[in-house]
């Protein structure tokens, strides 16, 4: 059985899964949508109170949480929409121009 990561434009149709089925979960995670960014959110960990208000508002599930702590952005999936900066009650997220994270 062919895996999602081995399927590309050059894969012959005979090798594709029947009916266009996918047998693995969450294969989209391997796809880089971070290159879409024209603006980039920057996370200031020292200002973050881990209130988590930004997490459910991220359309791209690009804000990881572990053991009660909000971690830095997943820049492979973040599209730079800036919703998180707008819902953050603290100065913990600022948007910078351009697709690359920098302070």
């Amino acid at each position, binding site marked *: 059985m062919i895996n999602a990561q081995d399927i590309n434009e050059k894969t012959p149709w005979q090798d594709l899964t029947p009916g266009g089925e*996918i047998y693995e*979960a969450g294969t*989209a995670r391997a*796809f880089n949508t971070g290159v879409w960014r024209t603006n980039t959110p920057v996370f200031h960990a020292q200002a973050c109170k881990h209130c988590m208000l930004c997490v*459910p508002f991220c*359309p791209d599930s690009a804000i990881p*949480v572990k053991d009660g702590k909000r971690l830095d952005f997943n820049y492979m999936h*973040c599209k730079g*929409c800036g919703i998180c900066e*707008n819902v953050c009650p603290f100065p913990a997220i600022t948007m910078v121009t351009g697709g690359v994270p920098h302070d």
Partner: protein
Amino acid sequence: MSKIYNLKREVEKPPRLTGGHRLCAGCGAGVVVSGVLRALNQEDRAVVVNATSCLEVSTFMYPYTAYMDSFIHSAFENSAATCSGVEAAYNALKRRGKVDGTVKFITFAGDGGTYDIGFQSLSGAMERGHDMVYVCYDNEAYMNTGIQRSSSTPLFARTTTTPVGSAGQGKKQNKKDLTEILVAHNIPYVAQTAPLGNFKDLHTKSHKAIYTEGPCFLNILSPCPRGWDYPMAQLAQITKLAVDTCVWPLYEVEEGIWRLSYIPKKKLPVEEFMRPQGRFRHMFQKGNEWMIEEVQKQVDQRWESLLEKTGA
């Protein structure tokens, strides 16, 4: 889930809608869908059914799926029928002891796939009483194909098929009140919600809908920065204004009992919600004041009637 909602505990769960999907930056649908799926108990599995929509073409592009659960898409008009079929098959297998564990059935469709094209299959599935949740993420037009008007598009809104010019000033017809139509199906649970604040409203309603036996319906406002023409970073602000102006009231109907979920401390005038959106821009031109008055009048009427139904 314990009875008290705790955002910190909920966001600790691994997301069931992953990143890497191709929804536009700032899309409300991604926020709505991950919010609904977060309400599943972590140990339970789900079958996600999707009508053709922005969501479907963006989250399930072969060989990429953004779902951690099983997913099925067949067509625009039959997502509720597809879901009810899968649910019936599951029940048959369960009776024969061939599947175990809890599996929940959730359909996502946009307003085009719900208010218009998928309406017959939705109505049928609800009437037949399948144990499923149908979630409409309502962005008020056919955004996927280029912002054409749907029966969910509000009065006077500009779309590509209701353009603004000398011949017309946006949509001439009213928005259909689908939530109330679903209430009239006499199903166990119907609710209207939106992504707001700490997501308590969206989460508790989703959890209730998923874990109430029988057919349940959620209508969730899902702002679209492209179609509504507002700055994409303003999703939370736009949604809040929709709720505070009573354009999109939050309520639920459980076993026939109407309950208002939120009464704004100060009911804002509708123009507060409309001004930031390009689709309503023509209404602020000189000579078009009557349009805003008309919308305000209708919103007030519907709000009063909702207050009456909920006894608030």
